Protein backbone atom coordinates (compact mmCIF):
# COMPACT_ATOMS: atom_id res chain seq x y z
CA UNK A 1 0.00 0.00 0.00
CA UNK A 2 2.74 2.44 1.05
CA UNK A 3 4.61 1.62 -2.13
CA UNK A 4 1.64 2.55 -4.25
CA UNK A 5 1.23 5.84 -2.39
CA UNK A 6 4.94 6.56 -2.69
CA UNK A 7 4.83 5.86 -6.41
CA UNK A 8 1.76 8.10 -6.77
CA UNK A 9 3.46 10.96 -4.88
CA UNK A 10 6.68 10.60 -6.86
CA UNK A 11 4.73 10.61 -10.12
CA UNK A 12 2.93 13.80 -9.18
CA UNK A 13 6.11 15.51 -7.98
CA UNK A 14 7.96 14.47 -11.10
CA UNK A 15 5.18 15.65 -13.40
CA UNK A 16 4.89 19.08 -11.81
CA UNK A 17 8.67 19.50 -11.76
CA UNK A 18 8.73 18.57 -15.42
CA UNK A 19 6.06 21.13 -16.27
CA UNK A 20 7.81 23.85 -14.30
CA UNK A 21 11.09 23.19 -16.01
CA UNK A 22 9.44 23.15 -19.41
CA UNK A 23 7.78 26.55 -18.97
CA UNK A 24 10.94 28.07 -17.48
CA UNK A 25 12.93 26.91 -20.46
CA UNK A 26 10.43 28.45 -22.78
CA UNK A 27 10.64 31.70 -20.92
CA UNK A 28 14.42 31.76 -20.66
CA UNK A 29 14.80 31.18 -24.35
CA UNK A 30 13.30 34.58 -25.17
CA UNK A 31 13.87 36.39 -21.93
CA UNK A 32 16.53 38.97 -22.55
CA UNK A 33 16.83 39.49 -26.28
CA UNK A 34 14.07 42.08 -26.85
CA UNK A 35 13.31 44.70 -24.28
CA UNK A 36 11.21 47.84 -24.51
CA UNK A 37 13.13 50.59 -22.75
CA UNK A 38 11.86 54.13 -22.21
CA UNK A 39 14.65 56.57 -23.09
CA UNK A 40 15.62 58.74 -20.12
CA UNK A 41 14.60 61.94 -21.92
CA UNK A 42 11.17 60.56 -22.96
CA UNK A 43 7.81 60.69 -21.15
CA UNK A 44 5.81 57.62 -20.13
CA UNK A 45 4.58 55.72 -23.19
CA UNK A 46 0.89 55.25 -24.00
CA UNK A 47 1.22 51.60 -25.05
CA UNK A 48 2.38 49.49 -22.15
CA UNK A 49 2.25 45.93 -23.59
CA UNK A 50 -0.03 45.05 -20.66
CA UNK A 51 -2.38 42.91 -22.76
CA UNK A 52 0.34 41.97 -25.22
CA UNK A 53 3.47 40.92 -23.32
CA UNK A 54 6.55 41.52 -25.43
CA UNK A 55 8.57 38.43 -26.29
CA UNK A 56 11.37 37.82 -28.71
CA UNK A 57 9.19 35.37 -30.64
CA UNK A 58 6.31 37.87 -30.76
CA UNK A 59 8.58 40.62 -31.99
CA UNK A 60 10.16 38.35 -34.63
CA UNK A 61 6.72 37.25 -35.82
CA UNK A 62 5.65 40.91 -36.04
CA UNK A 63 8.73 41.71 -38.09
CA UNK A 64 8.15 38.72 -40.34
CA UNK A 65 4.58 39.88 -40.97
CA UNK A 66 5.72 43.47 -41.57
CA UNK A 67 7.97 42.33 -44.41
CA UNK A 68 5.56 39.75 -45.86
CA UNK A 69 3.75 40.74 -49.10
CA UNK A 70 1.28 37.85 -48.71
CA UNK A 71 -0.66 40.16 -46.41
CA UNK A 72 -1.89 41.97 -49.54
CA UNK A 73 -4.58 40.79 -51.95
CA UNK A 74 -2.22 39.66 -54.72
CA UNK A 75 0.82 39.07 -52.49
CA UNK A 76 2.57 42.03 -54.08
CA UNK A 77 2.78 44.58 -51.27
CA UNK A 78 4.11 44.29 -47.73
CA UNK A 79 3.92 46.96 -45.00
CA UNK A 80 7.60 47.50 -45.73
CA UNK A 81 6.89 48.60 -49.31
CA UNK A 82 5.64 51.97 -48.11
CA UNK A 83 7.47 51.97 -44.77
CA UNK A 84 11.15 51.62 -45.63
CA UNK A 85 13.66 51.31 -42.80
CA UNK A 86 16.22 53.57 -44.51
CA UNK A 87 13.59 56.34 -44.64
CA UNK A 88 12.80 55.93 -40.94
CA UNK A 89 9.93 53.72 -42.16
CA UNK A 90 8.42 56.42 -44.37
CA UNK A 91 8.21 56.05 -48.16
CA UNK A 92 11.18 57.75 -49.75
CA UNK A 93 10.45 59.84 -52.86
CA UNK A 94 6.79 58.79 -52.93
CA UNK A 95 4.40 61.69 -52.33
CA UNK A 96 1.54 59.18 -51.88
CA UNK A 97 1.41 55.41 -51.40
CA UNK A 98 1.32 52.98 -54.30
CA UNK A 99 -1.05 50.10 -53.62
CA UNK A 100 -2.09 46.94 -55.43
CA UNK A 101 -2.83 47.23 -59.17
CA UNK A 102 -0.76 50.43 -59.34
CA UNK A 103 -3.41 52.29 -57.38
CA UNK A 104 -2.24 55.68 -56.12
CA UNK A 105 -3.43 56.69 -52.66
CA UNK A 106 -4.11 60.22 -51.48
CA UNK A 107 -1.74 60.59 -48.55
CA UNK A 108 1.96 60.36 -47.75
CA UNK A 109 2.95 57.25 -45.79
CA UNK A 110 3.98 58.43 -42.33
CA UNK A 111 7.35 57.51 -40.82
CA UNK A 112 7.08 54.83 -38.14
CA UNK A 113 8.90 55.35 -34.86
CA UNK A 114 8.05 56.15 -31.25
CA UNK A 115 4.56 54.83 -31.94
CA UNK A 116 4.24 53.58 -28.35
CA UNK A 117 3.86 57.26 -27.37
CA UNK A 118 0.98 57.91 -29.78
CA UNK A 119 -2.69 57.92 -28.83
CA UNK A 120 -3.96 58.53 -32.36
CA UNK A 121 -2.59 57.37 -35.68
CA UNK A 122 -2.73 58.46 -39.32
CA UNK A 123 -2.77 62.02 -40.62
CA UNK A 124 -6.33 62.51 -39.40
CA UNK A 125 -6.06 60.57 -36.13
CA UNK A 126 -8.80 58.15 -37.23
CA UNK A 127 -7.00 55.19 -35.70
CA UNK A 128 -7.07 55.17 -31.91
CA UNK A 129 -4.86 52.26 -30.98
CA UNK A 130 -1.48 51.00 -32.17
CA UNK A 131 -2.92 47.48 -32.62
CA UNK A 132 -5.40 48.85 -35.14
CA UNK A 133 -2.88 50.93 -37.05
CA UNK A 134 -2.21 48.28 -39.77
CA UNK A 135 -5.96 47.79 -40.49
CA UNK A 136 -6.31 50.81 -42.75
CA UNK A 137 -3.56 49.78 -45.11
CA UNK A 138 -4.53 46.10 -45.02
CA UNK A 139 -8.16 46.73 -46.01
CA UNK A 140 -7.92 49.84 -48.20
CA UNK A 141 -8.72 48.88 -51.80
CA UNK A 142 -5.95 51.23 -52.91
CA UNK A 143 -3.29 49.82 -50.59
CA UNK A 144 -3.13 46.12 -49.68
CA UNK A 145 -6.80 45.45 -50.62
CA UNK A 146 -7.08 42.44 -48.35
CA UNK A 147 -9.14 41.57 -45.27
CA UNK A 148 -8.38 40.17 -41.84
CA UNK A 149 -10.29 36.98 -42.64
CA UNK A 150 -8.32 36.43 -45.84
CA UNK A 151 -5.00 36.98 -44.11
CA UNK A 152 -5.84 34.79 -41.11
CA UNK A 153 -6.92 32.03 -43.51
CA UNK A 154 -3.72 32.38 -45.56
CA UNK A 155 -1.50 32.29 -42.49
CA UNK A 156 -3.32 29.22 -41.14
CA UNK A 157 -2.64 27.38 -44.38
CA UNK A 158 1.00 28.44 -44.62
CA UNK A 159 3.78 26.07 -43.70
CA UNK A 160 5.70 28.62 -41.60
CA UNK A 161 3.19 30.71 -39.67
CA UNK A 162 1.51 28.18 -37.32
CA UNK A 163 4.90 27.39 -35.76
CA UNK A 164 5.75 31.10 -35.47
CA UNK A 165 2.41 31.80 -33.73
CA UNK A 166 3.02 28.79 -31.51
CA UNK A 167 6.31 30.20 -30.23
CA UNK A 168 4.95 33.73 -29.97
CA UNK A 169 1.63 33.03 -28.25
CA UNK A 170 1.90 29.45 -26.97
CA UNK A 171 -0.66 28.13 -29.45
CA UNK A 172 -0.62 27.61 -33.19
CA UNK A 173 -4.15 28.99 -33.44
CA UNK A 174 -4.13 32.13 -35.58
CA UNK A 175 -6.70 34.89 -35.24
CA UNK A 176 -6.82 38.59 -36.05
CA UNK A 177 -6.02 39.60 -32.48
CA UNK A 178 -2.73 37.68 -32.47
CA UNK A 179 -1.89 38.98 -35.93
CA UNK A 180 -2.45 42.59 -34.85
CA UNK A 181 -0.69 42.11 -31.52
CA UNK A 182 2.38 40.57 -33.15
CA UNK A 183 2.56 43.51 -35.56
CA UNK A 184 2.20 45.88 -32.59
CA UNK A 185 5.11 44.16 -30.83
CA UNK A 186 7.27 45.02 -33.80
CA UNK A 187 5.99 48.54 -34.46
CA UNK A 188 5.94 49.59 -30.79
CA UNK A 189 9.57 48.50 -30.52
CA UNK A 190 10.57 51.02 -33.20
CA UNK A 191 12.03 53.53 -30.77
CA UNK A 192 14.17 56.32 -32.14
CA UNK A 193 16.00 58.17 -29.38
CA UNK A 194 19.68 58.15 -30.26
CA UNK A 195 20.05 61.15 -32.53
CA UNK A 196 22.74 63.76 -31.98
CA UNK A 197 20.01 65.89 -30.37
CA UNK A 198 19.24 63.14 -27.82
CA UNK A 199 22.93 62.81 -26.97
CA UNK A 200 23.10 66.58 -26.61
CA UNK A 201 20.14 66.58 -24.22
CA UNK A 202 21.48 63.63 -22.24
CA UNK A 203 25.01 65.12 -22.19
CA UNK A 204 26.43 62.05 -23.88
CA UNK A 205 29.48 61.76 -26.10
CA UNK A 206 28.76 62.78 -29.69
CA UNK A 207 26.13 65.30 -28.63
CA UNK A 208 28.20 68.48 -28.97
CA UNK A 209 26.36 70.98 -31.17
CA UNK A 210 28.20 73.23 -33.62
CA UNK A 211 27.55 76.96 -33.38
CA UNK A 212 25.16 76.73 -36.32
CA UNK A 213 23.23 73.82 -34.77
CA UNK A 214 23.07 75.74 -31.49
CA UNK A 215 21.64 78.78 -33.32
CA UNK A 216 19.20 76.51 -35.14
CA UNK A 217 18.07 74.96 -31.85
CA UNK A 218 17.45 78.45 -30.44
CA UNK A 219 15.37 79.36 -33.52
CA UNK A 220 13.52 76.06 -33.29
CA UNK A 221 12.55 76.72 -29.69
CA UNK A 222 11.47 80.22 -30.63
CA UNK A 223 9.38 79.39 -33.72
CA UNK A 224 8.60 75.69 -34.02
CA UNK A 225 8.53 73.92 -30.66
CA UNK A 226 4.98 74.95 -29.74
CA UNK A 227 3.65 72.36 -32.21
CA UNK A 228 6.73 70.18 -32.68
CA UNK A 229 7.11 69.74 -28.96
CA UNK A 230 10.23 68.16 -27.52
CA UNK A 231 11.26 65.44 -26.93
CA UNK A 232 8.96 63.65 -29.41
CA UNK A 233 8.90 66.71 -31.69
CA UNK A 234 5.11 66.73 -31.96
CA UNK A 235 2.34 67.66 -29.56
CA UNK A 236 0.08 65.16 -31.38
CA UNK A 237 -2.45 67.91 -32.12
CA UNK A 238 -4.24 68.45 -35.43
CA UNK A 239 -3.54 71.76 -37.13
CA UNK A 240 -4.04 73.56 -40.39
CA UNK A 241 -0.75 74.96 -41.66
CA UNK A 242 -2.15 76.97 -44.55
CA UNK A 243 -1.26 74.74 -47.48
CA UNK A 244 -4.45 75.63 -49.37
CA UNK A 245 -7.28 78.14 -49.25
CA UNK A 246 -9.74 75.25 -49.32
CA UNK A 247 -8.18 71.95 -48.38
CA UNK A 248 -8.71 69.28 -51.04
CA UNK A 249 -8.34 66.64 -48.32
CA UNK A 250 -10.86 67.11 -45.48
CA UNK A 251 -8.20 65.90 -43.01
CA UNK A 252 -9.35 65.71 -39.41
CA UNK A 253 -12.89 66.55 -40.56
CA UNK A 254 -13.10 62.99 -41.96
CA UNK A 255 -13.04 61.71 -38.40
CA UNK A 256 -14.87 64.40 -36.44
CA UNK A 257 -17.41 65.69 -39.00
CA UNK A 258 -16.56 69.23 -37.90
CA UNK A 259 -16.15 71.97 -40.49
CA UNK A 260 -13.59 73.61 -38.18
CA UNK A 261 -11.41 70.51 -38.58
CA UNK A 262 -11.25 70.71 -42.36
CA UNK A 263 -7.66 70.75 -43.58
CA UNK A 264 -6.24 69.96 -40.17
CA UNK A 265 -3.67 67.18 -40.02
CA UNK A 266 -1.62 65.63 -37.27
CA UNK A 267 1.57 67.54 -36.46
CA UNK A 268 4.25 65.09 -37.62
CA UNK A 269 7.34 64.41 -35.56
CA UNK A 270 10.47 66.11 -36.88
CA UNK A 271 12.71 63.26 -35.81
CA UNK A 272 14.53 61.69 -38.78
CA UNK A 273 12.94 64.35 -40.98
CA UNK A 274 16.12 64.53 -43.10
CA UNK A 275 15.48 60.92 -44.22
CA UNK A 276 11.71 60.85 -44.65
CA UNK A 277 11.02 63.10 -47.64
CA UNK A 278 8.68 64.06 -49.22
CA UNK A 279 6.76 66.18 -46.75
CA UNK A 280 3.18 67.16 -45.76
CA UNK A 281 0.07 64.93 -45.77
CA UNK A 282 0.15 64.70 -49.56
CA UNK A 283 3.91 64.70 -49.98
CA UNK A 284 3.82 67.98 -51.94
CA UNK A 285 7.24 69.22 -50.84
CA UNK A 286 10.27 67.14 -51.71
CA UNK A 287 12.87 69.10 -49.74
CA UNK A 288 13.08 70.66 -46.30
CA UNK A 289 14.04 73.96 -47.98
CA UNK A 290 10.63 73.96 -49.68
CA UNK A 291 8.96 73.30 -46.33
CA UNK A 292 10.74 76.24 -44.67
CA UNK A 293 9.90 78.41 -47.66
CA UNK A 294 6.23 77.47 -47.29
CA UNK A 295 6.28 78.68 -43.69
CA UNK A 296 8.28 81.76 -44.71
CA UNK A 297 6.14 82.95 -47.60
CA UNK A 298 3.57 80.37 -48.70
CA UNK A 299 1.07 80.13 -45.84
CA UNK A 300 -2.46 80.75 -47.12
CA UNK A 301 -5.05 82.26 -44.86
CA UNK A 302 -8.10 80.06 -44.49
CA UNK A 303 -10.83 79.82 -41.88
CA UNK A 304 -9.08 76.99 -40.03
CA UNK A 305 -5.51 78.30 -40.24
CA UNK A 306 -3.68 77.70 -36.96
CA UNK A 307 -3.46 80.79 -34.76
CA UNK A 308 0.28 80.25 -34.26
CA UNK A 309 0.76 80.85 -37.98
CA UNK A 310 -0.95 84.24 -37.95
CA UNK A 311 0.58 86.10 -35.07
CA UNK A 312 0.89 89.90 -35.14
CA UNK A 313 -1.02 90.16 -38.42
CA UNK A 314 1.68 88.24 -40.19
CA UNK A 315 1.21 84.90 -41.90
CA UNK A 316 3.67 82.08 -41.39
CA UNK A 317 7.14 82.00 -39.85
CA UNK A 318 9.46 84.57 -41.36
CA UNK A 319 13.07 83.44 -41.34
CA UNK A 320 16.04 84.90 -43.21
CA UNK A 321 18.20 82.65 -45.42
CA UNK A 322 20.94 82.25 -42.78
CA UNK A 323 18.30 81.53 -40.15
CA UNK A 324 16.79 78.84 -42.37
CA UNK A 325 20.27 77.38 -42.87
CA UNK A 326 20.82 77.21 -39.11
CA UNK A 327 17.38 75.69 -38.55
CA UNK A 328 18.12 73.02 -41.17
CA UNK A 329 21.41 72.25 -39.45
CA UNK A 330 19.51 71.70 -36.21
CA UNK A 331 16.84 69.54 -37.89
CA UNK A 332 19.60 67.27 -39.16
CA UNK A 333 20.70 66.63 -35.56
CA UNK A 334 17.36 64.79 -35.23
CA UNK A 335 18.53 62.03 -37.58
CA UNK A 336 18.99 58.79 -35.68
CA UNK A 337 21.47 56.67 -37.64
CA UNK A 338 21.50 53.97 -34.98
CA UNK A 339 17.77 53.58 -35.52
CA UNK A 340 17.77 53.39 -39.30
CA UNK A 341 20.81 51.10 -39.33
CA UNK A 342 19.48 48.81 -36.62
CA UNK A 343 19.52 45.29 -38.09
CA UNK A 344 16.92 44.21 -35.54
CA UNK A 345 14.33 46.22 -37.47
CA UNK A 346 15.33 44.96 -40.88
CA UNK A 347 14.38 41.87 -42.80
CA UNK A 348 16.49 38.76 -42.08
Amino acid at each position, binding site marked *: *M*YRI*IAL*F*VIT*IVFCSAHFTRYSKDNFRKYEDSVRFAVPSNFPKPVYDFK*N*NPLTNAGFMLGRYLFYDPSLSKDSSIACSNCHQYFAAFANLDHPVSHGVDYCLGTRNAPALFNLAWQKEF*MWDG*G*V*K*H*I*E*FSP*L*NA*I*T*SSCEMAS*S*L*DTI*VHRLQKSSTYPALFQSAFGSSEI*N*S*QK*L*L*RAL*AQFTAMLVSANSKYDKHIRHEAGGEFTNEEETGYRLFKQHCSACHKEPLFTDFSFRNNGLELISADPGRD*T*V*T*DQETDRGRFKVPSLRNIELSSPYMHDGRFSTLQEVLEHYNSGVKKNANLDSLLQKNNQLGIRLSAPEQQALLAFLKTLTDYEFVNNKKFQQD
Partner: protein
Amino acid sequence: MKKNTVTSLVALLLFFAFSAFKPAPKSGKCKLIICFQHFVDKQPLKLNDSLNRYLNANGDSFYITTFKYYISNITLTKTNDETITIPDSYLLVNAADSSTFTQQLPDVPAGKYKNISFIIGVDSLRNFSGAQTGCLDPAKGMFWTWKNGYIFVKMEGYSPQSSDKKNRLVFHIGGAIAPNNTIRNFSQILPKKIKLKQGHEKQIGVDVNAAALFRGKSTVDFSTLNFTMGGPKSVVIADNYSEGLFTVTN
Protein backbone atom coordinates in the same frame (compact mmCIF):
# COMPACT_ATOMS: atom_id res chain seq x y z
CA MET B 1 -5.49 4.95 12.63
CA LYS B 2 -2.68 4.52 10.12
CA LYS B 3 -5.18 3.45 7.51
CA ASN B 4 -7.20 6.60 8.17
CA THR B 5 -4.14 8.77 7.69
CA VAL B 6 -3.33 7.00 4.46
CA THR B 7 -6.89 7.37 3.22
CA SER B 8 -6.94 11.07 4.02
CA LEU B 9 -3.56 11.54 2.34
CA VAL B 10 -4.79 9.85 -0.81
CA ALA B 11 -8.01 11.86 -0.67
CA LEU B 12 -6.01 15.06 -0.25
CA LEU B 13 -3.74 14.22 -3.16
CA LEU B 14 -6.68 13.29 -5.33
CA PHE B 15 -8.37 16.56 -4.38
CA PHE B 16 -5.30 18.59 -5.38
CA ALA B 17 -4.83 16.55 -8.53
CA PHE B 18 -8.41 17.16 -9.62
CA SER B 19 -8.65 20.76 -8.48
CA ALA B 20 -5.67 21.48 -10.70
CA PHE B 21 -7.64 20.39 -13.75
CA LYS B 22 -11.15 21.50 -12.93
CA PRO B 23 -11.93 24.93 -11.53
CA ALA B 24 -14.19 24.95 -8.50
CA PRO B 25 -17.80 25.33 -9.67
CA LYS B 26 -19.12 28.86 -9.25
CA SER B 27 -21.95 28.90 -6.81
CA GLY B 28 -25.39 30.03 -7.84
CA LYS B 29 -24.80 30.61 -11.55
CA CYS B 30 -27.68 30.22 -13.98
CA LYS B 31 -28.09 30.49 -17.67
CA LEU B 32 -30.21 33.19 -19.31
CA ILE B 33 -31.05 32.67 -22.95
CA ILE B 34 -32.09 35.63 -25.07
CA CYS B 35 -33.99 34.91 -28.27
CA PHE B 36 -34.12 37.67 -30.88
CA GLN B 37 -36.87 37.95 -33.47
CA HIS B 38 -36.73 40.52 -36.23
CA PHE B 39 -39.56 42.58 -37.63
CA VAL B 40 -40.30 45.64 -39.69
CA ASP B 41 -43.25 46.85 -37.69
CA LYS B 42 -45.83 44.03 -37.80
CA GLN B 43 -44.16 42.05 -40.60
CA PRO B 44 -41.36 39.57 -39.94
CA LEU B 45 -38.05 40.77 -41.40
CA LYS B 46 -37.10 38.90 -44.53
CA LEU B 47 -33.78 39.92 -46.06
CA ASN B 48 -33.32 40.60 -49.79
CA ASP B 49 -37.07 40.37 -50.47
CA SER B 50 -37.30 42.96 -53.22
CA LEU B 51 -40.85 41.94 -54.12
CA ASN B 52 -42.49 42.53 -50.75
CA ARG B 53 -41.23 45.89 -49.67
CA TYR B 54 -41.66 47.59 -46.35
CA LEU B 55 -42.79 51.17 -45.86
CA ASN B 56 -41.01 53.59 -43.57
CA ALA B 57 -42.87 56.22 -41.53
CA ASN B 58 -42.42 58.68 -44.40
CA GLY B 59 -44.17 56.28 -46.80
CA ASP B 60 -40.97 55.38 -48.70
CA SER B 61 -40.79 51.75 -49.77
CA PHE B 62 -37.65 49.76 -49.09
CA TYR B 63 -36.17 46.33 -48.59
CA ILE B 64 -33.29 45.26 -46.40
CA THR B 65 -30.16 43.34 -47.40
CA THR B 66 -28.13 43.61 -44.19
CA PHE B 67 -29.18 44.06 -40.59
CA LYS B 68 -26.63 43.55 -37.81
CA TYR B 69 -26.24 45.08 -34.38
CA TYR B 70 -24.32 44.87 -31.12
CA ILE B 71 -25.75 44.93 -27.64
CA SER B 72 -23.45 44.99 -24.63
CA ASN B 73 -23.14 45.54 -20.89
CA ILE B 74 -26.32 43.64 -20.11
CA THR B 75 -27.55 44.59 -16.67
CA LEU B 76 -30.30 42.84 -14.74
CA THR B 77 -32.10 44.34 -11.75
CA LYS B 78 -33.36 42.09 -8.98
CA THR B 79 -36.67 42.70 -7.28
CA ASN B 80 -34.66 43.98 -4.28
CA ASP B 81 -33.12 46.61 -6.61
CA GLU B 82 -29.70 44.95 -6.66
CA THR B 83 -28.18 45.37 -10.13
CA ILE B 84 -26.06 42.71 -11.78
CA THR B 85 -23.98 43.68 -14.82
CA ILE B 86 -23.00 40.57 -16.72
CA PRO B 87 -19.22 40.80 -17.22
CA ASP B 88 -18.00 40.76 -20.80
CA SER B 89 -21.51 40.63 -22.22
CA TYR B 90 -21.07 41.56 -25.87
CA LEU B 91 -23.55 40.14 -28.35
CA LEU B 92 -23.56 40.52 -32.12
CA VAL B 93 -26.80 39.59 -33.82
CA ASN B 94 -26.93 39.21 -37.59
CA ALA B 95 -30.31 38.91 -39.30
CA ALA B 96 -28.63 36.83 -42.01
CA ASP B 97 -27.32 34.24 -39.54
CA SER B 98 -29.96 32.41 -37.52
CA SER B 99 -27.29 30.94 -35.23
CA THR B 100 -26.94 34.42 -33.73
CA PHE B 101 -30.66 34.73 -32.88
CA THR B 102 -30.26 32.72 -29.70
CA GLN B 103 -27.65 34.13 -27.35
CA GLN B 104 -26.64 32.66 -24.03
CA LEU B 105 -25.53 34.35 -20.84
CA PRO B 106 -24.12 31.41 -18.90
CA ASP B 107 -23.05 33.17 -15.70
CA VAL B 108 -26.07 34.95 -14.28
CA PRO B 109 -26.41 34.78 -10.48
CA ALA B 110 -29.56 33.16 -9.11
CA GLY B 111 -32.34 35.52 -8.09
CA LYS B 112 -35.61 37.13 -9.03
CA TYR B 113 -35.28 39.81 -11.70
CA LYS B 114 -37.62 42.60 -12.73
CA ASN B 115 -35.67 44.73 -15.23
CA ILE B 116 -33.17 44.39 -18.05
CA SER B 117 -31.01 47.09 -19.56
CA PHE B 118 -28.16 47.13 -22.04
CA ILE B 119 -26.15 49.36 -24.32
CA ILE B 120 -27.23 49.42 -27.95
CA GLY B 121 -23.71 49.21 -29.36
CA VAL B 122 -20.36 48.78 -27.64
CA ASP B 123 -19.26 50.78 -24.61
CA SER B 124 -16.80 53.59 -25.20
CA LEU B 125 -13.86 51.91 -23.46
CA ARG B 126 -14.01 48.73 -25.55
CA ASN B 127 -14.15 50.77 -28.76
CA PHE B 128 -10.58 51.90 -28.13
CA SER B 129 -8.97 48.97 -26.28
CA GLY B 130 -7.03 47.42 -29.14
CA ALA B 131 -7.49 44.11 -30.95
CA GLN B 132 -10.35 41.97 -29.62
CA THR B 133 -11.60 38.44 -30.25
CA GLY B 134 -15.00 36.72 -30.45
CA CYS B 135 -17.87 38.86 -31.68
CA LEU B 136 -15.70 41.98 -31.24
CA ASP B 137 -13.10 40.68 -33.71
CA PRO B 138 -12.68 43.49 -36.27
CA ALA B 139 -12.85 40.76 -38.95
CA LYS B 140 -16.62 40.61 -38.29
CA GLY B 141 -17.05 43.64 -40.55
CA MET B 142 -18.49 45.77 -37.77
CA PHE B 143 -15.37 47.86 -37.13
CA TRP B 144 -14.27 51.00 -38.92
CA THR B 145 -10.63 50.82 -39.93
CA TRP B 146 -10.41 54.48 -41.00
CA LYS B 147 -12.29 56.00 -38.08
CA ASN B 148 -11.84 53.56 -35.24
CA GLY B 149 -14.72 52.22 -33.31
CA TYR B 150 -17.43 49.65 -33.80
CA ILE B 151 -20.44 49.97 -36.07
CA PHE B 152 -23.19 49.54 -33.50
CA VAL B 153 -26.09 49.06 -35.90
CA LYS B 154 -25.65 48.30 -39.59
CA MET B 155 -28.60 48.38 -41.96
CA GLU B 156 -28.27 48.28 -45.72
CA GLY B 157 -30.91 47.96 -48.40
CA TYR B 158 -32.58 49.66 -51.32
CA SER B 159 -35.37 52.15 -51.78
CA PRO B 160 -36.62 53.72 -55.02
CA GLN B 161 -36.89 56.96 -53.04
CA SER B 162 -33.17 56.93 -52.19
CA SER B 163 -31.35 59.67 -54.09
CA ASP B 164 -28.22 57.51 -54.19
CA LYS B 165 -27.17 56.58 -57.73
CA LYS B 166 -28.04 52.94 -57.18
CA ASN B 167 -30.97 53.67 -54.83
CA ARG B 168 -28.97 52.24 -51.98
CA LEU B 169 -29.65 52.67 -48.29
CA VAL B 170 -26.49 52.58 -46.15
CA PHE B 171 -26.94 53.16 -42.45
CA HIS B 172 -23.78 52.38 -40.49
CA ILE B 173 -24.42 53.79 -37.05
CA GLY B 174 -21.48 54.15 -34.70
CA GLY B 175 -19.17 56.62 -33.02
CA ALA B 176 -18.41 56.89 -29.32
CA ILE B 177 -17.04 60.42 -29.17
CA ALA B 178 -19.00 63.64 -28.52
CA PRO B 179 -20.65 65.44 -30.25
CA ASN B 180 -21.45 62.47 -32.47
CA ASN B 181 -21.70 59.81 -29.81
CA THR B 182 -24.24 57.17 -30.84
CA ILE B 183 -24.07 54.93 -27.77
CA ARG B 184 -27.67 54.54 -26.58
CA ASN B 185 -29.09 52.73 -23.57
CA PHE B 186 -32.08 50.45 -23.53
CA SER B 187 -33.98 49.60 -20.39
CA GLN B 188 -37.27 47.82 -19.84
CA ILE B 189 -39.25 46.42 -16.95
CA LEU B 190 -39.74 42.74 -17.70
CA PRO B 191 -43.37 41.91 -18.57
CA LYS B 192 -43.04 38.93 -16.23
CA LYS B 193 -40.48 38.77 -13.43
CA ILE B 194 -38.01 35.97 -14.00
CA LYS B 195 -36.82 33.70 -11.24
CA LEU B 196 -33.46 32.09 -11.90
CA LYS B 197 -32.73 29.06 -9.75
CA GLN B 198 -29.23 27.80 -9.23
CA GLY B 199 -28.09 25.61 -12.12
CA HIS B 200 -31.27 26.25 -14.12
CA GLU B 201 -31.86 28.18 -17.30
CA LYS B 202 -34.57 30.62 -18.39
CA GLN B 203 -35.37 32.16 -21.70
CA ILE B 204 -36.52 35.65 -22.62
CA GLY B 205 -37.61 36.92 -25.99
CA VAL B 206 -36.63 40.21 -27.57
CA ASP B 207 -38.49 41.61 -30.56
CA VAL B 208 -36.32 43.79 -32.76
CA ASN B 209 -38.10 46.29 -35.02
CA ALA B 210 -35.88 47.62 -37.81
CA ALA B 211 -38.48 50.28 -38.65
CA ALA B 212 -37.44 52.07 -35.44
CA LEU B 213 -34.39 53.50 -37.24
CA PHE B 214 -36.58 55.72 -39.37
CA ARG B 215 -39.09 57.31 -37.05
CA GLY B 216 -39.44 58.73 -33.57
CA LYS B 217 -37.53 61.91 -32.94
CA SER B 218 -37.15 62.45 -36.71
CA THR B 219 -39.11 60.91 -39.56
CA VAL B 220 -36.52 59.79 -42.09
CA ASP B 221 -37.04 60.69 -45.75
CA PHE B 222 -34.88 58.41 -47.90
CA SER B 223 -34.55 61.07 -50.57
CA THR B 224 -32.53 63.21 -48.16
CA LEU B 225 -31.10 60.70 -45.70
CA ASN B 226 -29.96 57.42 -47.23
CA PHE B 227 -26.27 57.21 -46.31
CA THR B 228 -24.42 57.62 -43.03
CA MET B 229 -21.23 56.19 -41.57
CA GLY B 230 -20.98 57.94 -38.24
CA GLY B 231 -21.31 61.68 -37.69
CA PRO B 232 -24.38 63.90 -37.20
CA LYS B 233 -26.67 61.83 -39.48
CA SER B 234 -25.88 58.72 -37.48
CA VAL B 235 -26.90 60.60 -34.34
CA VAL B 236 -30.33 61.24 -35.92
CA ILE B 237 -30.81 57.49 -36.50
CA ALA B 238 -29.49 56.54 -33.04
CA ASP B 239 -31.85 59.03 -31.42
CA ASN B 240 -34.67 57.34 -33.31
CA TYR B 241 -33.84 53.76 -32.43
CA SER B 242 -33.10 54.44 -28.77
CA GLU B 243 -36.90 54.05 -28.51
CA GLY B 244 -38.66 51.17 -30.18
CA LEU B 245 -35.82 49.06 -31.59
CA PHE B 246 -36.09 46.49 -28.80
CA THR B 247 -39.07 45.13 -26.87
CA VAL B 248 -38.67 42.38 -24.31
CA THR B 249 -41.56 39.92 -24.57
CA ASN B 250 -40.45 37.30 -21.97
